[in-house]
């Protein structure tokens, strides 16, 4: 199953490392990353594959949210379907 990870917040050292480590710990494979920093505002969007992940997606969402809060970032993971539904016919 594919999902989208988004990270939004103030740029700081180690954001990508932290998110990637957490995903790797749960066997979530990163398929694609785009990232921009505009006037210190950090935005990263990742396409990931969660088929090898043993935890339910909701639990991963909680872990990412917690990790984000610790750094003052908004980090979320959502099933890709929601974006496809809204932006593709």
């Amino acid at each position, binding site marked *: 199953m594919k999902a*989208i990870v*988004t990270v*939004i917040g103030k740029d700081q050292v180690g954001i990508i490392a932290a998110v990637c480590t957490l995903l790797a710990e749960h066997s979530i494979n990163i398929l*694609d990353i*785009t990232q*921009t920093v505009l006037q210190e505002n950090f*935005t990263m*969007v990742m*396409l990931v594959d969660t088929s090898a992940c043993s935890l*339910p*997606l*909701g639990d991963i*969402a*909680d872990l990412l949210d917690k990790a984000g809060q610790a750094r003052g970032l*908004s980090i*979320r*993971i*959502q*099933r*890709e*379907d*929601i*974006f*496809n*539904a*809204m*932006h*593709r016919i």
Partner: protein
Amino acid sequence: MLNQHEILQTIRMIDQQHLDVRTITMGISLLSCAHSEVKVACDNVYDKITRDAEKLVATGEAIEREFGIPIVNKRISVTPISLVAAASRTDNYAPFAQAMDRAAKTCGVNFIGGFSALVQKGMTEADRTLIHSIPEALSTTDIVCGSVNVGSTKAGIDMDAVALMGRTIKDLADRTADTRGFGCAKLVVFCNAVEDNPFMAGAFHGVGEGERVINVGVSGPGVVYHALQSVKGQPFDVVAETVKKTAFRITRMGQLVAQEASRRLGVPFGIVDLSLAPTPAVGDSVARILEEMGLETCGIHGTTAALALLNDAVKKGGVMASSHVGGLSGAFIPVSEDEGMIAAASSGVLTLDKLEAMTCVCSVGLDMIAVPGDTSAETISAIIADEAAIGMVNSKTTAVRIIPAPGCKVGDSVEFGGLLGSAPVMPVHPGSSTDFIARGGRIPAPMQSLKN
């Protein structure tokens, strides 16, 4: 492949523009629960609801977390209780409401609807019993909602029922006087009620429906408002197109959630109701959308035209996005639940008369309106009759959810809290409609041709 802009647009809609799925409502048929003994029938009702909707809340929450989209309410609608209770030997149906209340709380849902009767052409003994039981039923329960359909385009308006409902609303307000008549926020009087509406307080599971069904109500006034900010000053063609595109996206999201809920629960998917349902939160208001179109305040001249465009464009955008569209679908204009409406009504610009005109083109009717506590039952009946006439003649659903707030005068404000918000007490016309309501009988069904 999705691009970053699209993904972030969705995130912004959820984070900043209050995009959400307003409700997943499971419809449950209670026809099999009928029994001559009230206690047995009520036990049947409790057992059936708790069995059928056992996983509703957990499933809704799981979908919410996986898709990252808020699902604000999980609700249950049931067969109109006047049909279920008709077999029982009793002159009080309040125990049925209490059984519904207990069952809904066990399931963990926000509201349960269906303490209802359909009396557009006449009342059975059971219908009368149900209506007489409403004040006790809704004042002794917390999350049970009731509705009564008093008219339809095909049947006309049952004026005996209209008269009865005026008295019922007054009685219910008095019994819940400690909360300024909050009980009345859980009661809707309909004309042309729909059988698959997932929104409260008017949801019930129609007799034409299957055993169980999943209906989903989407919302998003904030998203539409935000989209219109990007087309300031442009012609209405552009406004309509913008609303349609936005409604399409919102509804696609609702359709996805509805299908997912239906699959996980093993319950057939019914409809998506693509209504713009406001909340008291700033930035989630239908009134502010109308004002964004160029009106200084909601309620001034031009408001009805703006609402007509909005209501129609929402339907047009949503219809293609869902395999089955139903329910009420359009723009709601509840006064207490809409920050912009509250402001417009408090300032005296938005009046009951203008609201009535707006209900000719909105999706439902006079919704969540507080009037002075000394408003007579006949005046309330007359307001219901006016509103039902609009629905009957225009072949649309109209409704009245009115709160004659005990002890309150024009200028006061009634606090309901949560999504129900706060309602400024609005003035009603002082003249008497007593002789009009005392006539009773039926207003005949209207012509469906020679439409002028």
